[in-house]
């Protein structure tokens, strides 16, 4: 197992480098002059444009720019944005917000999704199953943007249960955005669990367990659920990786100063250093959580071994 993990981590290094080169090239290829975009409607003098262009090496060829970036990276410097703020500071500031949002979202996704899925799965075509089927269809088909505004207006403004925006109320501020962000995945987890459970309920080992006279709760939790979790864990694991990349829409609507909002702003402003820094981090998260998922397989299903 240890060797497997080490190997996976080693493979991650070229993946990260490759991803950063790719992102770097893409930002480089963006048309237009970021310095001019920064100045807006009001022209800045050619001398200032020149100074800024030189400072950020914007005139250099792609690989020279990337080399400069890599040199900084090796000494722990992720570069600075056009405002002179270190990218590392930006990530340190925005990542905790996104991590909190992700935690809340994953809790909703896992808890509600799993419970709904299990309940629907054990009584297929029952009343609850149909309810889950209809409600998840509805949720999945509404764009998250609309959900976000609806939730904000209904639970924030009209009912006043949750703050409308911002992070002023600590963890409580994350409940509504977390629920909105989780909604799509939640529906997916519920359906995945339902199918998986329903399938396993007919499996031989479940019939055996029932025949042994085990109580239904034990049959479902110990035998069926554990085996049904593999696809669900895969999904949630990949989802965590994606959620940590930030949720542009949710973070914008609920005014959470997280990494997704930062990334979106940086892409618009062609802030190469910030975009590369954040995206590389996202790739890292993705790799890391996929590794955890793979390791969890072995825990859930003893038949899977990695050595």
């Amino acid at each position, binding site marked *: 197992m240890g060797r497997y993990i080490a190997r996976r981590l080693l493979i991650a290094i070229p993946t990260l480098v490759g991803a950063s080169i790719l992102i770097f090239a893409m930002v480089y290829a963006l*048309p237009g002059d970021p310095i001019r975009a920064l100045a807006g409607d009001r022209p800045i*003098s050619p001398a200032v444009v020149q100074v800024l262009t030189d400072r950020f090496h914007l005139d250099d060829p792609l690989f020279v720019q990337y080399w400069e970036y890599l040199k900084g990276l090796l000494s722990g410097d992720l570069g600075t944005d056009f405002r002179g703020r270190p990218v590392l500071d930006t990530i340190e500031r925005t990542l905790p917000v996104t991590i909190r949002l992700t935690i809340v979202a994953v809790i909703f996704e896992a808890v509600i999704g799993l419970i709904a899925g299990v309940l629907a799965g054990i009584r297929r075509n029952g009343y609850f199953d149909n309810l889950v089927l209809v409600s998840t269809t509805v949720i999945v088909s509404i764009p998250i943007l609309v959900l976000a*505004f609806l939730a904000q*207006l209904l639970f924030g403004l009209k009912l006043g249960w949750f703050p409308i*925006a911002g992070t002023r109320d600590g963890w409580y501020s994350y409940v509504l955005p977390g629920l909105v962000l989780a909604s799509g995945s939640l529906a997916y987890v519920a359906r995945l669990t339902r199918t998986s459970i329903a399938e396993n309920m007919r499996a031989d080992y479940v019939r055996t367990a029932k025949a042994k006279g085990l109580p239904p709760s034990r049959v479902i939790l110990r035998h069926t659920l554990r085996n049904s979790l593999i696809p669900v864990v895969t999904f949630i694991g990949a989802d965590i990786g994606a959620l940590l990349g930030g949720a542009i*829409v949710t973070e914008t609507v609920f005014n959470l100063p997280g990494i997704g909002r930062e990334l979106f702003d940086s892409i618009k402003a062609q802030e190469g250093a910030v975009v590369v820094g954040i995206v590389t981090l996202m790739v890292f998260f993705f790799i890391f959580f996929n590794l955890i998922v793979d390791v969890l397989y072995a825990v859930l299903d003893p038949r899977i071994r990695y050595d």
Partner: protein
Amino acid sequence: MKLNKRPLALIAMAAATALTLSACGGGDDDSGSGGGGDGGGTFTAYIGEPKSPLVPGNTTESEGAKVISALWTGLVGYDEDGAVTYDGVAESIESDDNQNWTITLKDGWTFHDGTPVDAQSFVDAWNYTANPQNAQDGGSYLSRIAGFADLESGAATELSGLAVVDDLTFTVQLETPFALFPAVVGYDAFNPLPDVFFDDPEAFGTNPIGNGPFQADSEYVPGQGITLTRYDDYAGDDAAQADGMEFVVYADQATAYTDAEDGNVDIVDVIPPDVIESAQSEFGDNFINTEVSQITYLGFPTYDARFADPRVRQAISMAIDRDAISTAIFSGTRTAADSFISPVVDGYREGSCTYCEFDPDQANDLLDEAGFDRSQPIDLWFNAGAGHDAWIEAVGNQLRQNLGVDFQLRGDLDFAQYLPLGEEKGFTGPFRYGWSFDYPAAESYLTPLFTPQSFPPVGSNYPFYENPEVTDLIQQGDQAGTEEEAIELYQQAEDLVAEDMPMAPLFFTQIQTVHTDHVSNVRIDLFQRPVWSEVTVN
């Protein structure tokens, strides 16, 4: 790879829908964010993320400028008609020849760190801002001061036109005489900087120290905001009424507006266009409409043979029913422009743009006279992702309807590509442009837009328009003895511009502000910023 701004447009659209739904919502419970009574208390205000660190000389966009205006007081202020008032740091700004100016400061002004605001703090700040090595966005505001060109070319490191006489006096020599110089220096880029700035300009950007009615209480946190408290040793007459205030950064105007409905943020100075009608009924007296300095233009590429004839440009201008577009698309937030000089400054004359009047018949005659080829569509250029699509299309439809010329929308370029294309004379048809004054003066609508010294990339003369008579009249105005004479000469220049029609003024902008019952006395100044010091907390 092409990144368009569709997600943003989607967000805006959904915001529009959602907020229309919310029109009947109530925002009656107040945020209990401060004490009551006369004076005192604290309030909160919306800002978008400032583009630059909070340094006055580096802040030329609206969001950072709102914070700067709370933290700094400039040399002069302006009354509601744009006339200079000496309620800032300057005691007097005088000159015999309009070229050599002596600025005398009032005694007793201090920065928030206790150091005095003296002549040196202005001269140092101006030298820093003007030096291109420091890459300050506001540098070009100082371009009238002698020695600016040497700074640009790297031949000098300081402005030769600035000299400190004593603690409270310094002199400014201009490149050429300019009668309206006192009106220029009230802008942010001319604010003084304390010594501590020069030790570490970067750190200063998050811990700004000014001389204004409020002082920073915390450091600025990007994406979140900054808290200010009243500066008790403030020397000006416009001391802060409230004990303190907080700027809260919102990623989205629509969210800020919803938060204001619920009473969580007290002042939202610019609300999204979609909610204006509902906001009026919902906020009642707390809804404020202010005419601001911005003019929206349709510029013409005078370098393109097709638009080289002034009659073609006049015709296009006359074929656009500005009122109809204003009502249908802007729900009255922009009014039909009838002049090249905004109504908010001295020198505006109603209807001075004669060819701005909607008259399809005359437009057709002019087009025929000019021998315009109607079989080819007209390209209409605008920058993408900034909400210009609808009204530009309306303009196109009117051209088709009134002139019988088809049109083609060219709105794929982001701002970062749009202006550089204009610099390279790449516009193949009329293009959108917006302009707000640098300082409240008629001249600020002429020199930067219609003279050859403002050809891009130095200035904003994107039509590449040149008329020696216009340039000459503006120059005479700059050197006139009195303001009245100056304005008269500027107006003569405006009349010539109106005849040549290098850009067709389309709309004057109005902004809509809402505030909660928690605050009163909210007023928007000429630079589109709420006057923070006047705000009282209920």
